[in-house]
C-alpha cells in the first residue's frame, strides 16, 4: 500500500495493521526517515516537502510493485508526507514483511533507495540564511545502483 499525505502517521498502528492476521510473516523490516535539525553546519528550522501529485503516486506504486516482484513479500507499505515539517517529525515510512528476514530487510532497503532517487519529492530547507532547495546526493544514486540487477533472495 502507498500513501502521500500531509498528516503525520501513527507508526505503531500502521505496522500493526500491516502484519495483522497474516501468520506467515516471520520478519518485518521498517525504515522511518525523520527531519534532522542540522544539514552540514547549518541549523534547520523546518523543511517543506513539495511533490508532483499524480506522478508521485504512480512512482511509489511502481516501486512497491517492483519490490514485491523481486522478493516474496507478505505485506509492504510506503507512506510519504508532504508539506511543512519540523525537526523530529516523521517524513517517510517504508516497511516490508516476509516469511524470512533477509527478504524483508533487502526489500525495505530497496524501497527507500528507489524512492529517494525516483519518486518526485523535493525538500526545501529553512535555515538562518533563508530557504534553500536541497541538492540531490550522489550517495543516493549509488545506493540505488546496487539494485540494478535483480538480486537473488538470500535464504534464511
Amino acid at each position, binding site marked *: 500500500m502507498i500513501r502521500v499525505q500531509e498528516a503525520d502517521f501513527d507508526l505503531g498502528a500502521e505496522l500493526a495493521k500491516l502484519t495483522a492476521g497474516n501468520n506467515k510473516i516471520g520478519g518485518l523490516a521498517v525504515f522511518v*526517515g525523520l527531519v534532522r535539525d542540522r544539514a552540514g553546519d547549518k541549523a534547520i528550522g523546518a523543511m517543506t*516537502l*513539495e*511533490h*508532483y501529485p*499524480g*506522478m508521485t503516486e*504512480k512512482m511509489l506504486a511502481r516501486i512497491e510493485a517492483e519490490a514485491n516482484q523481486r522478493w516474496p513479500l507478505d505485506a509492504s507499505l510506503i507512506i*510519504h508526507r508532504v508539506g511543512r515539517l519540523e525537526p523530529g517529525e516523521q*517524513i*517517510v515510512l517504508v516497511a516490508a514483511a516476509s516469511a524470512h528476514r533477509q527478504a524483508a530487510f533487502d526489500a525495505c532497503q530497496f524501497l*527507500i533507495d528507489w*524512492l*529517494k*532517487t*525516483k*519518486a*518526485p*519529492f*523535493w*525538500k*526545501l530547507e529553512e535555515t538562518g540564511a533563508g530557504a534553500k*532547495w*536541497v*541538492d*540531490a*546526493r550522489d550517495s*543516493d544514486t549509488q545506493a540505488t545502483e546496487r539494485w540494478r540487477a535483480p538480486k537473488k533472495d538470500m535464504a534464511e
Partner: protein
Amino acid sequence: MKLLYFAWLKSKTGVAEEDVTPPPEVTTVAELLIWLRGRGPGHAEALADLDAIKVAVNQEYAQAGDPVRPSDEVALFPPVTGG
C-alpha cells in the same frame, strides 16, 4: 502543451504551470527545453544548465531525445530529494 515546474525550476521561472504552443519544429524534450529559454529571463536562467534538469512526459521520466507532442503534460524539475 501543459508544462509543470517544481522546486527551484518553479521559483526561477516564476510559474508552477503554464500552457504553451511550441512551433512544429519542436519535437523532442531537448528541443522543447531550448525553445523554453526564450520565454523570458526567468526561464533562461532556470534552463541554463540542462544537465541539472529532469523531465517527465505524461508522468514518465523522459530523455533528451524523447518525443513531445502538443497534447503532452511535460514536467521540469531538479533531481528528486525525498525520503
